[in-house]
């Protein structure tokens, strides 16, 4: 006997189950935001969910004390903090922004990435809520704007430059850091003669490769050409090709460690930061976070005092301003809804001088977004980096953040391939032209 009606029975059961599921209202999770007052600082109770990347000490502890202090000052606002490891945001943010209750405050790296997230319609426009105090942050705030409106607020700044080991420089007979590429190359030769790897590079992580090419582009391209290229997502200007030529010539001098294409930037024994920390390489082109990374990678307790910093050297004949730097930062965005005023107040609190000082001193986040807090920097290398950052003619955001995420990632990949010997100037320039990865 054929059960010819059985599939129909099953189908009905399935349809019924799905209908029931679809009709049930979504329950509120334990971290949903509740209604808030219409004006900031009023008496209605507000709970904000906060997704930040401070999942380990010391940053974790600093954020926790910030939450407690803010709550003491604003008893009607409770902040529920949820630290998430940095890399996981790539997976979680698109999903969160599609959900019914995304976090009220979340980690934001600005630039084109922010612009991509902006299309979700869930980012809150903070221009008017922050208008009273955003000028304290100076130029830094521009990196977190979309179409001139403030959709995110930075809490720290980063600048990229060369970290070097003073002891290894001394060993190779280098008396002062190089200021031009030619000097850098001759210093590399001296280091090699002394049996030292000149520069460590985390090619396996892709983005450290990008720093080199992007700095050559910043040196070769004038500010206006650079900015219009970023805006138009088009790198056909000749200065970019020149940057590739500079990079090729530089790479021909073999300044990096063997097998750099698989070396990761910061994890583990053989990372590029680890090589620098353990004296197996003399220099690394990295952001100011290097001082937070390096201590964990070596048993040398004095490693921080051994490190010096110098800006990316000059390139002869380049149209870029000599003091321009490659920069970035970390910040937060608010999501639209009743929590916006409280969110903006919280971000203002984070950018206030005392909190900024705490972030710099205790958490070692790098350079503060609020330059008034820079006075607490004690490390001379970091002070040098901060000075270069502040006195720069302009700050160029790292390209993979400045471009929309799609094109920025394509550029990183093209550059990493180029470093691995599989690419050309065309692949680099054209990487930002197509929209999906072919």
């Amino acid at each position: 006997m054929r059960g010819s009606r059985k599939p129909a029975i099953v189908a009905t059961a399935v349809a019924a189950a799905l209908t029931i599921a679809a009709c049930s209202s979504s329950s509120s999770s334990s971290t949903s935001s509740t209604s808030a007052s219409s004006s900031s600082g009023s008496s209605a109770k507000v709970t904000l969910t906060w997704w930040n990347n401070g999942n380990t000490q010391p940053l974790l502890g600093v954020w926790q004390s910030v939450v407690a202090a803010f709550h003491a000052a604003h008893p009607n606002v409770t902040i529920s903090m949820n630290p998430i490891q940095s890399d996981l945001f790539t997976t979680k943010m698109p999903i969160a922004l599609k959900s019914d209750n995304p976090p009220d405050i979340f980690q934001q790296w600005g630039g084109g990435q922010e612009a991509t997230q902006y299309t979700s319609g869930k980012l809150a426009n903070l221009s008017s809520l922050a208008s009273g105090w955003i000028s304290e942050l100076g130029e830094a705030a521009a990196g977190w704007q979309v179409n001139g409106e403030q959709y995110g607020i930075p809490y720290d700044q980063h600048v990229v430059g060369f970290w070097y080991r003073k002891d290894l420089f001394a060993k190779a007979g280098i008396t002062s850091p190089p200021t031009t590429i030619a000097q850098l190359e001759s210093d590399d030769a001296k280091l090699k003669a002394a049996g030292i790897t000149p520069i460590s590079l985390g090619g396996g992580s892709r983005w450290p490769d990008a720093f080199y090419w992007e700095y050559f582009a910043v040196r070769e391209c004038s500010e206006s050409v650079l900015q219009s290229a970023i805006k138009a997502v088009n790198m056909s200007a000749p200065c970019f090709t020149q940057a590739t030529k500079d990079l090729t010539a530089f790479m021909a001098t073999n300044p990096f460690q063997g097998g750099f294409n698989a070396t990761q930037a910061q994890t583990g024994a053989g990372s590029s930061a680890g090589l620098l920390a353990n004296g197996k390489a003399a220099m690394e082109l990295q952001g100011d976070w290097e001082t937070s990374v390096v201590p964990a990678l070596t048993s040398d307790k004095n490693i921080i005092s051994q490190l010096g910093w110098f800006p990316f050297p000059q390139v002869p004949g380049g149209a870029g301003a000599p003091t321009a730097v490659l920069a970035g930062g970390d910040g937060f965005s608010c999501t639209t809804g009743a929590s916006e005023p409280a969110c903006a107040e919280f971000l203002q609190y984070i950018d206030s001088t005392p909190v900024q000082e705490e972030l710099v001193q205790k958490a070692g986040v790098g350079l503060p977004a609020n330059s008034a807090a820079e006075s607490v920097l004690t490390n001379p290398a970091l002070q040098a980096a901060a000075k270069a950052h502040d006195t720069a003619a302009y700050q160029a955001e790292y390209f993979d953040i400045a471009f929309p995420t799609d094109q920025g990632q394509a550029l990183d990949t093209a550059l990493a391939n180029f470093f691995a010997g599989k690419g050309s100037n065309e692949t680099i320039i054209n990487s930002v032209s197509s929209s999906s990865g072919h």
Partner: protein
Amino acid sequence: MSAATARLPRRPPRRDVIRDRRTWLSLPASYLVILLVLAITIAPMLYMIVGGFSTTAQLNANPNALPHPWVWSNYAAIATSSIFWQAVANSVVVAVVATGLAVTLGSMAAFALSRYTFRGREVFYLLFVAGLLFPLNTAALPLFLLLQQIGLNDNLFGVALPEAAFALPVTIVILRPFMRAIPGELEDAAIVDGASRIRFFLRILLPLSRPALITVGILAFVTSWNAYLLPLVVFSSQDHYTLPLAVANFQSTYTQDTARVYAFTAVSMIPALAIFIFAQRKLVGGLVGAIRG
């Protein structure tokens, strides 16, 4: 282990030594090969376990050396960490629910697909097989939205139920041939005695299938224990994290506490390995039916 073996004529058991003498690799050479395999398999894991007794700084400065000094703080910190024990509890709940559901529903479905004839049976079977072929990561976003709709977000069951669903294909595929191999005569006898087929299923077939059920149970448990993407997508609060997610706590934006990661992973493996040791004999027996059925 299958009932079919019982029907072979009993012969006096041969002495093992005959078999051993007549294989093409002598006994000492066999031991050598096995030791080599053991070394290759175990050495990396030993490296990890021993690395947990080191500090990250040491591991980075000298990755090839033994810990000097041996540090207990990593393992101690894990044993006293409430996050770790919470994650263990979460992992256990999720894995037990997922495994229980998968084995229960899977055995019922396998019974239907193996011992009933009906139109569309092979279509249903193929439907389950198709679930194996689609990578999970793309389905993560729609799955998340679905879970949100039914209110299972940031909820242990929001992970356990989909895990059970994804374990169904494997379960059914292993159980079906094994259930088929149970002779029809047993079923006939049961029917004659007045039992329904469902009764036969519960009282006779399932007990006979116990090795296979344990097999699929182990597989489902280990898969759930190590699952990473689904919990990552579903859980937003740390106190719901399962063990693979909790490892991420040892990695910050820029650095990784490698020694802690090793120690944590070494300890995380213990429950899953314990389950395997406990059930490994039945594991071997269970798969026999799948092959011969």
